[in-house]
């Protein structure tokens, strides 16, 4: 079991009600998309936050990554809506 820090920003943080948490990932999670599906099954807050994976973005260890990216070896995975700075 791999332990990973999960970070949530903006709308996702509000929907889940958490900015950060530590999770032990079960076997069978290979990609960010797998992780999102697993988190969506936690409770209705997570289900709502991860209802439309394609509308979310992620960063692995502070680098923007596609949803198909492997989670193996990741220490910090962040989820957020498309960015709106500038």
């Amino acid at each position: 079991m791999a332990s990973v820090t999960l970070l949530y920003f903006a709308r996702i943080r509000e929907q889940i009600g958490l900015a950060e948490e530590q999770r032990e990932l079960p076997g069978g999670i290979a990609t960010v998309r797998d992780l999102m599906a697993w988190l969506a099954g936690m409770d209705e807050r997570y289900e709502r936050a991860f209802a439309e994976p394609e509308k979310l973005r992620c960063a692995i260890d502070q680098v923007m990554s596609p949803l198909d990216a492997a989670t193996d070896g990741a220490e910090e995975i962040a989820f957020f809506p498309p960015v709106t700075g500038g």
Partner: protein
Amino acid sequence: MRRVLVQAEDFDPGSELAALGTLGSGGVASFVGHVRGGDGLVAMTLEHYPAMTARALDTLAGEAEARWPLDGVTLIHRVGRLAPGDRIVFVGTASRHRAAALEACSFLIDRLKTDAPFWKKEEFAAGRSAWVEARSSDDAAARRWD
């Protein structure tokens, strides 16, 4: 010269431009973004991903330096609660070639809008608030530099 700052405090565009000017390049281009007012907007709060923000901006500055012959790049982005009219972002470039300075400045603000982890939440009268949605026109503007 590369200057990248993420801060709650305001910045002074005049002194930033002056600093780029002293490099002796001959040409300085800049963009300053402000909070857009209207529609009853009371304030805007900028959230960011602190561990990633400076790195993302630094990466962008590096990409601009690799593509254009720049002597200086300055990127400043504010975070926290801002009022309509307040400054949000400063992009400045210095080059011996005006096209390089102007294009690099345009590249930096376009890509900053899609690559840097900032999120805006707008507050309106009567306590209503809403996250700003990303615009497909911003994605298109960023992609023209691919």
